[in-house]
């Protein structure tokens, strides 16, 4: 498991190449399926052009919840490893915001786990986005839209959770 809050820009593909190279000996030949999701900044939202986005987080709590979400995924699916990298600070269009990955022997587990990681991150990890629009205004993004296809993944685990 690897969790990281990044204050500087990153390339998802470089991180994955580096991470897998580091773990090559341990992982060699024992996984067959890697599912990855990368969220990048778009230059529009709700009909407006966005030039810069500032990502805030709650240091300590954020890392705690990201680790917990990975642990839940590792309990729930047959995955050998999971990774979450999330950017904070000022990001610009096309910059990577989030990278999640799940490694498994089975493709169904890798797909389900990566989607679960994203959904739980978006609904529980304390991050907030403020957009700077091209015409100078600022606004906070009010909420994340849930992924209907991820609903079936969250249910069982949510019943076990206290509070949220």
């Amino acid at each position, binding site marked *: 498991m690897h969790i990281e809050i990044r204050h500087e820009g990153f390339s998802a593909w470089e991180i994955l190449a580096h991470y897998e190279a580091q773990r090559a000996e341990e992982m060699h030949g024992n996984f067959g399926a890697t599912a990855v999701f990368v*969220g990048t900044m778009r230059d529009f939202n709700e009909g407006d052009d966005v030039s810069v986005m500032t*990502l*805030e*987080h*709650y240091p*300590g*709590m954020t890392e*705690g919840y990201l680790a917990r979400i990975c642990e839940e995924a590792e309990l729930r699916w047959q995955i050998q490893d999971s990774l979450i990298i*999330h950017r904070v600070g000022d990001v610009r269009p096309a910059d990577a*915001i*989030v990278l999640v990955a799940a490694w498994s022997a089975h493709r169904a587990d890798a797909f389900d786990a990566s989607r679960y990681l*994203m959904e739980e*991150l*978006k*609904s*529980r*990890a*304390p*991050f*907030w*986005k*403020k957009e700077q629009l091209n015409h100078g205004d600022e606004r*906070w*993004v*009010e*909420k*994340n839209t849930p992924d209907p296809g991820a609903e079936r993944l969250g249910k069982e685990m949510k019943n076990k959770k206290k*509070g*949220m």
Partner: protein
Amino acid sequence: MTIRVKFFASLREQVGISEQDLENDGVGTVDDVWLAVTDNQVMPANVLIAINMEYVEAGTTVTDGDEVAFFPPVTGG
């Protein structure tokens, strides 16, 4: 008792406080902490609350030394 109170994102801007130590023996629940720190403002319905970095409900009891955080719906990812 001492409670460390934190606000994040839009709520930090609205309340005008990032972090504050509340010294007050009259607070019992998270609701009380909110009222004491915000000068009796009404808590918005969608506020999320954490004690010591764990999500809790507004009625949860606070203990000396707790860190209580208030923030709007999360929007990461």
